[in-house]
């Protein structure tokens, strides 16, 4: 090796770089050992390890040294890319857990290598969900509910589509990702093209989903059924999505020979479930069996019907793909005596009453009126409220004066590490939003007709000359001046902290706020964040997370992490209070953005149902009249029918899945304010 640039580093050179990376580290013996380990490596490997040693030292000297000591072993078995992933995983581990856990991770090289090799060819639900979701929404026009199946199967109950957590059936990750897309599309097709329902046969006899139930848990029958339906559904997809069908054909390879006899009939574009069942029955009379196919989704009629029943979907409608298919009502022998009569809007109800049907009933804390609730222990002990607000009683067509007692309650700080985890999770996205917001910020404005400035205003000059000639008094505003675009905007984020948001909705809210704050720090927009909840009109609560005059600092971060589900959703009073705070800001444009997960609801009095909706609507109206623009983001897939009325004076958007909220919030913000 003649070129000194690529010669290996001498012991002393390595020593120097290690000492520089870990200045003053007491473990000199350990350092010496690491240096000796690095000496025999190639120059590229030495550089790689030293680079990562320096990077890891930013996080922990001890951990960095540990990694460097193990690096020669690791490099025997990993290429440079694998090595980097190994180091990054260890550093992540330290961020999420602690140094000892991360050290243990580095020591267990075998485990990492096993997973790394494996991961190379595996696709996971998390990898594909976003893309799959968009794809299916585009082809179906509906917001579908897609979840991981605990039993690792792909199946649907016509409301939720379940997919395995990971797929490794095909040799490489790209193919496995395609497989996810194909499986998901076929699940959608099952509902769309009537796997669980068939048109009445020629004799007028309805072939219902019960036809499927007769196969019980006969595995051969269900496997054949899945395969035959895969044939039929593929033919259905051919007309609109020929490209996708070609992809499916490539993934699955040729149909198994055993299926040949079924192909002509089931590939007809107008074949129905009835055709599948006839072919299936013919197969079952023989002893034909076929191996399970990688792409054919499981059809599990028993489980599907059970879920449908649990949802009490007595309208019998599948939740998605519903436009062209309908379920027959269930025969009574299928019902185990549970009450099935669910209110449907317009039946047996006061005009305008909100139906208490299942479509709105997913809020876990929404109680039935006849359920006896424990008495709120605080009832008797209320101190003097911080604020009192009127509330709109639509039945009387008048306000109830000072009806709502509002308390400002501090938010208990949450885990300080939370914010960093979220930042890490969305790092690519934060960067992207920032870039977009940067563009808003970067737009300078030229003001014309200024008394001074950096260039002459030609129009003003000409006018000046003309006025001068005409004998009228010329203006002395002859310059153009560049100024930072002043947005003069104040934004209030009003966050639903009712009990129903516990869990994933809460998490989505927290993540959204962190994304927003991280990005908003770039702009000079004045913004505040408040949570709201409460229990009855005498204990309405508001939780300041960030006041207008507060900086986005560690204490605010900890409060965001501390956002959690509390009690009920009395929305009107929160809108009134927060729009008052917003109004006090001198900004020219005022924007109230609410994030909630359903309709206003409170315990104990009539706030539930129409009263709450009318009051909230009224409060938004009041805000509008005072120049405050509202935008409501709702995480609720099914409630969309009451939203246009509720948000009458405001604009709104329904975000169907909580996990999409963070990204969507950032986009919505950008649109509303540029």
């Amino acid at each position: 090796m003649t070129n000194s640039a690529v010669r290996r580093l001498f012991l002393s050179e390595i020593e120097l770089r290690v000492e520089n990376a870990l200045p003053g580290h007491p473990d000199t013996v350990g350092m010496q050992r690491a240096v000796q380990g690095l000496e025999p490596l190639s120059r590229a490997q030495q550089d790689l390890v030293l680079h990562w040693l320096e990077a890891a030292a930013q996080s922990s000297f001890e951990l960095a040294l540990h990694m460097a000591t193990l690096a020669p072993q690791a490099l025997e078995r990993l290429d440079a890319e694998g090595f980097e992933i190994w180091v990054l995983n260890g550093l992540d581990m330290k961020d999420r857990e602690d140094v000892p856990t991360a050290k243990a991770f580095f020591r267990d090289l075998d485990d990492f290598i096993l997973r790394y090799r494996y991961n190379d060819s595996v696709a996971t639900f998390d990898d594909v969900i976003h893309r799959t979701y968009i794809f299916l929404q585009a082809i179906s026009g509906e917001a579908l509910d897609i979840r991981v199946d605990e039993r690792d199967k792909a199946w649907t109950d016509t409301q939720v589509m379940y997919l395995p957590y990971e797929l490794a059936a095909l040799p490489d990750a790209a193919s496995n990702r395609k497989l996810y897309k194909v499986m998901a599309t076929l699940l959608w097709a099952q509902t769309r093209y009537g796997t669980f329902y068939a048109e009445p046969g020629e004799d007028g006899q309805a072939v219902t989903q019960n036809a499927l139930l007769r196969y019980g848990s006969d595995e051969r029958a269900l496997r054949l059924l899945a395969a035959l339906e895969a044939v039929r559904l593929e033919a259905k997809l051919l007309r609109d999505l020929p490209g996708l069908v070609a992809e499916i054909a490539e993934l699955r390879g040729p149909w198994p020979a055993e299926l040949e006899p079924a192909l002509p009939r089931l590939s007809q574009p107008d074949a129905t479930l009835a055709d599948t069942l006839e072919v299936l029955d013919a197969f079952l009379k023989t002893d034909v069996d076929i191996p399970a196919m990688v792409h054919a989704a499981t059809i599990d009629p028993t489980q599907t019907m059970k879920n449908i029943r649990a949802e009490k979907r007595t309208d019998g409608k599948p939740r998605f793909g519903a436009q062209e298919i309908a379920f027959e009502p269930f025969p009574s022998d299928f019902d185990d005596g549970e009450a099935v009569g669910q209110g449907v809007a317009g039946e047996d109800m006061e005009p305008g009453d909100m139906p208490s049907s299942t479509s709105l009933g997913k809020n876990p804390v929404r109680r039935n009126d006849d359920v006896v609730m424990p008495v709120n222990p605080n009832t008797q002990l209320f101190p003097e409220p911080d604020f009192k607000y009127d509330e709109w009683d639509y039945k009387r067509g008048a306000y109830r004066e000072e009806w709502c007692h509002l308390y400002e309650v501090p938010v208990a700080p949450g885990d300080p590490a939370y914010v960093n985890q979220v930042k890490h999770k969305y790092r690519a996205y934060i960067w992207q939003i920032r870039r977009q917001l940067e563009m808003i910020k970067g737009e300078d404005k030229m003001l014309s007709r200024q008394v001074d400035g950096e260039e002459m205003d030609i129009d003003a000059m000409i006018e000046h000359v003309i006025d001068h000639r005409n004998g009228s008094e010329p203006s002395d505003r002859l310059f153009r001046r560049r100024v930072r675009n002043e947005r003069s905007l104040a934004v209030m984020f009003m966050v639903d902290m009712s009990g129903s948001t516990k869990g994933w909705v809460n998490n989505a809210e927290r993540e959204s706020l962190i994304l927003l704050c991280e990005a908003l720090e770039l702009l000079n927009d004045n913004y505040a964040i408040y949570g709201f909840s409460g229990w009855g009109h005498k204990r309405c609560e508001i939780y300041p997370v960030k006041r207008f005059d507060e900086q986005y600092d560690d204490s605010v971060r900890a409060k965001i992490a501390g956002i959690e589900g509390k009690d009920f959703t009395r929305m009107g009073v929160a809108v009134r209070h927060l729009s008052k705070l917003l109004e006090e800001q001198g900004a020219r444009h005022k924007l109230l953005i609410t994030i909630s997960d359903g309709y206003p609801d409170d315990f104990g009095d009539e706030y539930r149902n129409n009263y709450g909706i009318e009051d909230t609507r009224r409060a938004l109206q009041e805000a509008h009249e005072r120049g405050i623009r509202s935008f409501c983001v709702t995480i609720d897939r099914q409630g969309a029918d009451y939203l246009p009325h509720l948000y009458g004076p405001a604009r709104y958007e329904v975000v169907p899945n909580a996990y999409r909220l963070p990204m969507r919030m950032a986009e919505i913000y950008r649109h509303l304010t540029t």
Partner: protein
Amino acid sequence: MTKQTHITPQLMRIDEEPFYQSVDDEIEMFEAAAKAGLPVLLKGPTGCGKTRFVEHMAWKLKRPLVTVSCHDDLTTSDLIGRYLIVGDETVWVDGPLTAAVRAGAICYLDEIVEARKDTTVVIHPLADARRVLNIDKHGEQVEAPPEFMLVISYNPGYQSVLKEIKPSTRQRFVAFDFDYPTAAVEAKIVAAEGGVSDDIAQKLVKLGQMTRNLKGAGLDEGASTRLLVHAAQLIASGVKPQAACTAAVARSLSDDPDMTASLQDLVNAVF
């Protein structure tokens, strides 16, 4: 007083019929508004045929057309006109709006929400019963002839709180709602404008509709008729359909890598 000379900007005269596929009764409605001397507001998403419609109507009514694309730097002088100095003389130059009024033309102000509020108010007296334009700079009041017609447009899809049309502006106009046409009609447009077969046009429209399903779910707007026409034109000039859609649709709708990948999946699924 200095001697004043007028310079008038070129007006566009449309002699050849621009292809416009009517969707509803908008042609008759526009004719009625023209007859009654009422100003018109066209609402609708980008690329759905608003501009084309106005061009078609200008041709049909045999009136010149003046189009102004509004932006937030547009001043009143940009619309009405200004003085220039030529040699020793001051010369008044009509702005496009003044020119349109004098000529009895159709004046089309595209994306009116982008204009500054103080600019928007100069059209008020033209857009009500007075039908006059006040040129304060030289104290002239131009009365609009019966042929003059004011048309404004805006896209209500995703409105920023910083940009709203004032009710006092908007309530002067007869409003037309535009949207992307039905699949069959849109396929006709794409085939005619893009020069492709009905089969290709239908696939493009299918793709367009799928992307419109993503409005509010990651996309601000789905693919417009304009984008579909662009894709068709690329195909007609020999580009493979998938590549044409990638360039004209997938990439132009989003920068988000996930979204672009999904749009690519859709393109691949349809062709």
